[in-house]
């Protein structure tokens, strides 16, 4: 019913506009086409000026309304993010100036040089000096931007420092899984044909590789990182291309099946600090999948906690390598527990006797 109503209204609006347009054409023919053409010209020239002024006010208003919702420059939670923000600032200033100048000229010229019987257009087919000027100036400005950009780019994409902790991130439709290398600091080898959820091997770890025996598998909960400690993420995918998007750290990298990728950065603010700084007690770091990966793409979410080394250690110590889930008999705790039970039984038995 409501839809019908809207459709009828739309149709009516349509018809009315059309009738007005048609009538205005008849009127213009009757009044003399030349006269109404001139009038139209004046109106549109004026509107172009209004559009310029209104548009600039709109740009300002838009920034007032939405400026607070974006990631503030300087709010970046990683060292690399500071570089990204700086580059953003440089670019914003340069393009902002160019934007205001060129748009103003465009609409101002349109208004100022609207047709008039008293003026003749100026025959001005070319001018080498002008053309050289506006080839050279953009070239110089762009060189500056490329220079800054590449300076930061090489810093961000450089080798991870030796003391960086390593976390492996694996995407699949539509979840994230993490793996920590354990005490030996080495991620054990994997082969995708070994992947078997039912057998406690969701990542396809090769159990022959001893480096795998202490690797910690984490899924369905936060990834934990240590504040001010560089971290290198080794990124994989099991099925289609995903992307590890870390907006607060200003980092991003695709997860490509068959071709592992990596990024590194140093988180500089704990989750707790961010909560305070952003005045948002609910704040969490989120991992968004940024590469279209199927129907659940928009909900492929992971979360990160950044904490102090002690907090991290406390969390880590409670974790067990996946190896022991796959081979419970190898688990020293289980062995100990088993041994304990045997002992208790042994201890109890004689008493009973």
């Amino acid at each position, binding site marked *: 019913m409501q839809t019908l109503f809207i459709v009828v209204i739309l149709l009516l609006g*349509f018809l009315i506009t059309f009738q007005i347009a048609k009538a205005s054409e008849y009127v213009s023919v009757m009044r003399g086409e030349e006269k109404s053409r001139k009038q139209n010209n004046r109106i549109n020239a004026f509107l172009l000026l209004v559009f310029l002024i209104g548009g600039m006010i709109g740009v300002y208003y838009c920034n007032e309304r939405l400026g607070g919702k974006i990631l503030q420059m300087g709010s970046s939670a990683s060292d690399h993010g500071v570089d990204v923000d700086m580059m953003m600032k440089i670019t914003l200033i340069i393009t902002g100036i160019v934007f205001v100048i060129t748009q103003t000229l465009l609409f101002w010229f349109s208004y100022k040089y609207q047709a008039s019987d008293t003026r003749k257009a100026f025959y001005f087919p070319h001018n080498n000096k002008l053309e050289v000027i506006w080839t050279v100036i953009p070239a110089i400005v762009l060189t500056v931007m490329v220079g800054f950009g590449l300076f930061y780019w090489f810093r961000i994409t450089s080798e991870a420092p030796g003391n960086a902790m390593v976390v492996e991130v694996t995407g699949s439709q539509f979840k994230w899984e993490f793996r920590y290398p354990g005490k030996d600091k080495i991620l054990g080898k994997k082969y995708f044909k070994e992947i078997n959820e039912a057998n406690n091997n969701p990542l396809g770890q090769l159990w022959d590789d001893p480096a795998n025996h202490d690797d910690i598998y984490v899924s369905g909960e936060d990834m934990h990182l240590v504040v001010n400690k560089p971290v290198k993420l080794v990124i994989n995918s099991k099925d289609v291309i995903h992307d590890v998007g870390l907006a607060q750290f200003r980092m991003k990298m695709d997860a490509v099946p068959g071709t592992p990728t990596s990024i590194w950065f140093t988180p500089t603010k704990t989750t707790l600090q961010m909560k305070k700084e952003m005045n948002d007690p609910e704040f969490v770091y989120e991992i968004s999948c940024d590469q279209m990966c199927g129907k659940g793409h*928009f909900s492929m979410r992971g979360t990160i906690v950044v904490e102090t080394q002690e907090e991290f250690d406390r969390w880590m110590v409670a974790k067990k390598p996946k190896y022991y889930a796959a081979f419970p008999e190898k688990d020293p705790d289980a062995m100990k527990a088993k041994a304990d039970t045997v002992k208790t039984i042994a201890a109890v038995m004689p008493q009973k006797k």
Partner: protein
Amino acid sequence: MSNEAIMHGHANVISHDDVHHDEHHAHHHQSFITKYIFSQDHKTIGKQFLITGIIWGVIGGLFSVLFRLQLGFPDQTFPILETFFGHWAKGGVIQPEFYYALVTIHGTVLVFFVLTAGLSGTFANLLIPLQIGARDMASPFLNMLSYWFFFIASVIMFASLFVHTGPAAGGWTIYPPLSALHEAGDGSKIGMDLWLISMALFIVSSLLGGLNYITTILNMRTKGMSMTRMPLTMWAILFTAILGVLSFPVLLSGAILLLFDRNLGTSFYLSDIVVNGHILPNEGGSAILFQHLFWFLGHPEVYIILLPAMGMVSEILSVNSRKPIFGYMAMIGSLFAICILAFLVWAHHMFVTGLNPFLGSVFVLLTLLIAVPSAIKVFNWLTTLWKGNIRFTPGMLFAIGFVSLFISGGLTGLFLGNSTIDIHLHDTKFVVAHFHIVMGVASMFGMFAGIYHWFPKMFGRYLNNTLGYIHFWVTIIGAYLIFWPMHYEGLAGVPRRYLDLRGWHNFNKFDDLNKMITIVSMIVFAMQLMFIFNFFYSIFKGRKVRTQNPWGSNTLEWTTPINPGHGNWVGEIPEVHRWAYDYSKDGRDFIPQTEPIGADESKDH
């Protein structure tokens, strides 16, 4: 049929006054079918491209309104959608598969069918022979085939909308493995095969057309029409065709390899995959390879869309400012530079795919380099307006709007082209805002400008002016309202292709904005329907054109009869004596290209 034959066939037809032209055609055994359907007349083929493009425009636009409903009102239900789309909109809620199918077809159709076929196809066909002084294209028959391949491609794409598992839904960039694996989702089933087949045919169409455009421009110019006397529209279309001919085959090969991977068990793009618990045997392929192939076309493609619009805008700005285009040679030079550089920047779409950082830096340099010719063009357009005597026809307004949008969208390109910033902005809404402004809306504006300007030549009637003005103002205001604030979402990190932000703590704060955008896009869409109504109404009922050269233009198309027949000129093709831009020279409003240089004319040019 060779061109000679057409010329001869016409010499006897065109001996009477042109008012009765159509009837004469009828006499000379032009049946309805050969005149309007399997026509070899470039003007008719141009109109066929245009009308097919308009139909796709309506479909693509309607899809955007539908998915905007979801984005603007994620918590509301629209039972009417279920009535129309059944299980795709169960309970009146757009399902994720449906959303992604809509977005994918929207992108594909607007990029390829509307702004490539509909734009180049229309204006290359219509304008090349008319502006260079030829009776028709070099091969009218191939030209006809070009349209019919496009038509078959359209039919297949349209059919894919109705298959049970729906059309392709991996985004218009169809990255494998998502698009390669049937198990990866409904949108990767038969719909994806149809998409690939349709695109393959589309590419054939575009190659046939492109080769024809190049040959015609190079070989069939009338006497005196040297390359540097051609209007800029011709230069732009020439470069567009060259770009297309060199880059589309690469996409074709990419698409064929993808078809193989999908159906024949090859591993070009596949390696190390476990999908839905199935371990696939493929090893050794590279998913990134496809992206290289895709973007080797994909980036030139954005210029294939943009260049014809630039050419038409240059022409229209000059005619309506009553001034020569400023820096004609620089305009050609910058077109040429853009054309070369367009092939050397494709990996700027791939900065975060694990690309070697050094390689990335080379692409940063080349990408920002392309801003130089773009800047030259903008400054030259501005100078063309300076001290003009400007008439604001609807075509002119759209041309001015084009320049404004091109500036806005070009500047955001400087953010994305700089890999450091792109790390943060890649695949966010910022990108969506950028490419819509610079490519989508800007080229649409170029196309509208062209339609308003050459409608009198196409149909011998005018579009309704008042509706034209309303169309312009609603569209430009709407376009900025839709896409300007969208940058802010991107700056907040909101990824693109997200249909619901409610599950995200850091992204879920743009409710009002998304509602506003949705409402505005509905209004803008309704306005386009109004334009289309104006278009078809005016073909039959528009005000008649009574003068041969209504805009006071120098170019050759306005020396043909008001309703030119097949063959364009009655009698001899006119000879050209000067460039196309002698406006306001020596105190004369305009001097047509056909007028010999006067003895006392000032020397400039």
